[in-house]
């Protein structure tokens, strides 16, 4: 036994070269990818007209703008801004609710355990994907063409772009539901609609409610920006004040947005906890 001793590393190296030397492709992969990433970055800087002088001049300008923003001051248009903020919150609430109402029946069609047929499910899913691929701002522009300028276009823009996102999330929630309760309803002689109403929905509704609340929260942010293209709300005022270079108003509006978003965050966090918490207790 003791004759074997420790194996000679040189011998081992000669016998199993593959273990001691990683192949060149593996060793070079990381530096090559890094190099490629940096090359594309450098090309991008050149192609997008980055220049140190422009950057410095811009930063200088930005510094002035920041100085002029202080202190935030709404001037005499505070009531107008508060009304715009209310409009933004209304857009977020209405748009999300509308989206949820349309998304629920469609998501049933996109869920594997409700509609087993691929022929229905596949086009519904691709349809939802396509709607999600278009940004809310683009939808806002389209709706402005259809219903004219104003918050109503914003509501519809939020509703349709969230319809795509919520439809997908709802269908995932439905697919994750437990099948046994549905089977129980079927065993006791329930119809297909009964299965959905009493077997599926009680499991899915709390999840869906949580997601809808989260979307109302994140749509408060989206609703602030759709005003930039003319779809109502505080974004409209913000874009307007930036265009006329009223920097104190701009900083006040940004501050209002930050406070509103934080407040909605807090409220929806409480509500979500209440919904999920109650379910956990029951």
């Amino acid at each position: 036994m003791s004759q074997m001793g420790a194996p000679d590393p040189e011998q081992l190296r000669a016998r199993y070269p593959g273990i001691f030397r990683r192949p060149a492709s593996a060793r070079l992969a990381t530096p090559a990818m890094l190099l490629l990433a940096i090359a594309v970055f450098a090309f991008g800087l050149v192609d997008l007209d980055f220049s140190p002088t422009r950057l410095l001049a811009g930063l200088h300008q930005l510094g002035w703008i920041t100085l002029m923003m202080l202190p935030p001051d709404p001037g005499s248009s505070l009531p107008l801004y508060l009304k715009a903020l209310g409009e933004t919150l209304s857009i977020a609430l209405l748009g999300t609710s509308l989206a949820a109402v349309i998304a629920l029946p469609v998501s049933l069609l996109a869920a594997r355990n409700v509609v087993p047929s691929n022929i229905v499910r596949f086009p519904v899913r691709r349809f939802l994907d396509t709607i999600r691929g278009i940004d809310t701002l683009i939808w806002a522009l389209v709706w402005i063409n259809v219903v004219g300028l104003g918050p109503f276009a914003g509501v519809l823009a939020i509703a349709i772009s969230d319809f795509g996102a919520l439809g997908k999330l709802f269908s995932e929630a439905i697919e994750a539901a437990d099948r046994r309760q549905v089977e129980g309803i079927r065993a006791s002689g329930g119809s297909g609609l009964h299965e959905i109403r009493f077997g599926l929905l009680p499991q899915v509704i709390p999840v869906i409610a949580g997601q809808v609340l989260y979307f109302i929260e994140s749509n408060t942010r989206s609703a602030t920006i759709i005003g930039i293209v003319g779809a109502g709300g505080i974004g409209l005022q913000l874009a307007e004040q930036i265009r006329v270079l009223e920097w104190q108003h701009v900083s006040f509006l940004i501050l209002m947005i930050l406070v509103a978003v934080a407040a909605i965050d807090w409220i929806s966090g409480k509500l979500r906890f209440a919904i999920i918490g109650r379910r956990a207790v029951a």
Partner: protein
Amino acid sequence: MTTAVSILPTQQLAELNRAYRNAVARRRLRLALAAALFLAALVIAAIGAEVNLKTLFTYFGNFVSYFDRILKLDSGARVWTDFGEWFWGWRKWLRLLGETLLISYVGTLIGAVFAFVLNFLAAENTSPNPRLRFVIRRLLEFARTVPAIVFALIFVIAFGLGPMAGVLAIAIHSSGALAKLFSEIVENADMKPVEGIRSTGASWISCMRFAVLPQVIAGYASYALLRFEINVREASVMGFVGAGGIGQELVVAIRKFYYSDVSAILVMIILTVFVIDIATGWLRARLFGKEART
């Protein structure tokens, strides 16, 4: 074998039934109250947003016919009958799409670098100084709460029209969003290697480099790729405020009612987003599939 179902005496049964009905009634009442509150909020919101259901119904036809119109060429034929005419500007649009991708790439990379530098200072377990952490956290919160397009509006004035404003806006917003995600990864990292390195007398930077970084780098790259995906969408609308990319063409086409152009550009944007989604998904699975599985 059959089991006998025991039936309770009627008196006891009535008692239980009553309790059950009470419990259900109480729950229903609470649900109805919540629904009523929600409906009231909706009505108030509807008044605030000047929603008019009648106009919605009259305009819904417009919405359908709008999609009918954007799928028609000037000659009245359907767009897919003549691809050459439909995508007449494909050279220019492809170049602008390329610019959009570059904006999101450069913006994401700059944002990721900033997030990388700042996240160790913002994470609870690695921050060298609580006061510094507080300041950096508030800054990052600000950067991610203000939407990128608002930054773009301001930057267009400071840096002039063009893609540079878009890149910087995306970079700032992404650095806020990424730093939060990054610091959450760091907070979940194992601290024992850090103690090991520190016990050898290493500096804070060496601790981060040799103890934390190897644990978190894969997660960072995965989140950065995800962010790139989001930023492609974001960059596609930067042109709305004059910050470069395909958005400029799209907004002109929509505002000036160049119907078939709208659908052509939309199709190109959707296809690009799909391709990027699939490509980054594939890349993430390839790069980090192994780590994710263990």
